[in-house]
């Protein structure tokens, strides 16, 4: 079964707008990670948030984690056309467990 489920499946915004993507998971996690994948390429790690953290920033990225709701959100501020990609959340459920990926969100940023 899928541990991480992203929402929405696809998002289209104008350059300069903010993009918010959500991820829900089913079981308790050790940490949650977000990755980006440009078309036809490998994944690039963006940010990791631990289960005892609530918010984390990295440049234009802001990630929140709500363990009571088993959900996380990724906010990209002031989006650029270069942010067009697929975004995946991935979660670790415990020591030495596998990283489980969601199915991804396709973000399109229109110039």
């Amino acid at each position, binding site marked *: 079964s*899928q541990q991480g489920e992203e929402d929405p499946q696809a998002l289209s915004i104008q350059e300069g707008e903010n993009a918010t993507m959500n991820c829900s998971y089913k079981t308790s996690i*050790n*940490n949650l*990670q977000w*990755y980006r994948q440009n078309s*036809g*390429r*490998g*994944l*690039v*790690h963006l940010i*990791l948030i631990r289960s005892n953290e609530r918010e984390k920033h990295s440049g234009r990225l802001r990630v929140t984690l709500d363990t009571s709701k088993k959900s996380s959100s990724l906010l990209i501020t002031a989006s650029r056309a270069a942010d067009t990609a697929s975004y*995946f959340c991935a979660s*670790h459920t415990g*020591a*030495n*467990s*596998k*990283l489980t*990926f*969601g*199915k*991804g969100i396709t973000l399109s940023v229109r110039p």
Partner: protein
Amino acid sequence: DVKVTQSSRYLVKRTGEKVFLECVQDMDHENMFWYRQDPGLGLRLIYFSYDVKMKEKGDIPEGYSVSREKKERFSLILESASTNQTSMYLCASGWDLNYEQYFGPGTRLTVT
């Protein structure tokens, strides 16, 4: 910068052929992974390795085997390729099983 390389970007093989996909990382990572990615299914773990000569099955190991003779190299083997193994194959590596993974560019395999 961490670099993970995969032997081919595109590969076309015939049904029944033995296929080798090679992955090399240059950061002395203990852990290496093979995933396949299919539309609507996301990434699914095939096998991973936490040390030289050590391997663990992932979620979908059937029809695949792996080899890790050296720390930097992790090979995925399709013993007898089938059309349902047509997919994008992604290799990754990492220092710790719990933390970030670094991905290669992927190999798009077509089995005809």
